[in-house]
């Protein structure tokens, strides 16, 4: 309770200090919190903001879906089958620290400068955390549980569905959470590098025409979308895994 009060007081003080600083004549590009809210509410009444937000989501979400789907499937396969493990894992761990965004120019040549290359690069970036977490989640299955299941007459498919998968789910969700944050970062990066729509494009346009209000509108929108996506994922996790306590 004392901490909640201190927390609210602290952040209220930060916001008030920012507001006062901006009102006392900060440079043009530092907007006061009240002004940011005002511009954001005004932008909510226009159609352009929704179009840009939709264009951004239409890139980030398919990329996230494709990347995590492949990542989880292959990660689980590598986690339970030695042949897949030896084929895939060295390659994945070797290329994991490589910045995937450098492939964007190449993808633009192969798949065009439209949305396909962006979705592909987002999927590629999301693949890695999904694969690695699913892989370790599946590998961390306690052996005793597999033995007991086998002893009680379960076949391979049943063991996978009833023992390995539920055990790996917390890790899989952890991987999806990293991948979701990553998909937004890569989406924003690709849009800032080259796009004709989307929030990343909006912020660059605003920057080039010195429309600081629009810069903050884009910033607030992407912040809200990122936050909402993260919350949604955590909510799904809580519903799917009622037995797990999240510490994140």
């Amino acid at each position, binding site marked *: 309770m004392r901490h909640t009060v201190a927390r609210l007081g602290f952040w209220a003080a930060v916001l008030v200090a920012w507001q006062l600083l901006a009102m006392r004549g900060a440079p043009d590009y530092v907007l006061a919190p009240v002004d940011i809210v005002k511009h954001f509410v005004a932008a909510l009444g226009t159609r352009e903001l929704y179009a840009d937000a939709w264009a951004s989501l239409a890139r980030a979400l398919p990329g996230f879906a494709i990347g995590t789907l492949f990542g989880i499937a292959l990660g689980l396969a590598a986690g339970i089958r030695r042949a897949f493990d030896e084929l895939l894992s060295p390659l994945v761990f070797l290329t*994991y620290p*490589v*910045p995937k965004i450098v492939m964007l*120019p190449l993808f633009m040549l192969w798949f065009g400068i439209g949305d396909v290359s962006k979705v592909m690069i987002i999927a590629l970036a999301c693949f890695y955390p999904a694969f690695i977490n699913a892989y370790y989640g599946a590998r961390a299955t306690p052996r005793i549980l597999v033995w007991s299941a086998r002893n009680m007459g379960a076949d391979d498919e049943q063991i996978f569905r009833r023992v390995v998968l539920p055990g790996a789910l917390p890790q899989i969700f952890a991987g999806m959470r990293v991948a979701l944050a990553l998909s937004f*970062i890569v989406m924003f990066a690709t849009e800032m590098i080259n796009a004709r729509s989307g929030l990343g494009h909006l912020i660059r346009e605003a920057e080039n025409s010195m429309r600081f209000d629009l810069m903050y509108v884009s910033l607030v929108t992407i912040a809200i979308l990122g936050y909402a996506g993260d919350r949604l994922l955590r909510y799904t996790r809580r519903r799917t895994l009622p037995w797990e306590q999240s510490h994140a």
Partner: protein
Amino acid sequence: MRGWRALILIALALAAWEITARSGLWSPILFPPLERIGHQLWLFISRPEGFVQTWTTLYRTFGGFAAGAIAGVILGMLMGRSAFVAALLDPLFSGTYAVPKLALFPIFIFLFGLGSLSKVALIFLECLYPMTIITYHGAQSVNRVLLWSAQNMGATRARTLARVVFPATLPYIFAALRVALPVALIVAIITEMISSVDGLGYVVTYALSSLRTDRMLAIVVVISFLGLALDRALVALRNRLVYWEKLDTYYV
């Protein structure tokens, strides 16, 4: 050799690339033959120009990474050992975790200028999150018995922090460093691709604009090698400093 199957996969991929390049079905701009990529790679390595660009990127990467790592460890330790600090800062870190900090880059350009400082500031911010969150988690989960023993034997608060909490958190700190270092490199490259006149990210976009895909791919190889080498170096350092804990999983 455990990875021999993976080597086969890589060899197959390279062979498929070469066949695609030589088949004549696609323009060599889309699929430049390996030999031309190798030649460009040699040109890049053998000229001082290449080193200058690589150094520029590394200098930004390390600048932001080091600052973010130090600040993140301090913040994470404070949050982990003080419920009050955690209550103040936790909503900030967990609330803005999924927000792409890259969106702040245009504002940073106005604040810190077009040069290295705006890029280093963004790298700092992107590294600060994983560093703080993972260190916080580690400092929180220090074995209570160890803390009680230290107190019992008359250790002061500062001494307990330095001799018990810090070593116990060190494996987590290294896990965090391993997350943050590739992030630092990625952000350096992205910011250089978006707005810069030097660094590897700029060279990639420049090579693409001049349709020199062979040169572009050579630099992609250089960047990949840098990412890999930095990660290996960090793991080596970790194995020397945190010798009491074996690294058996990729993350914590």
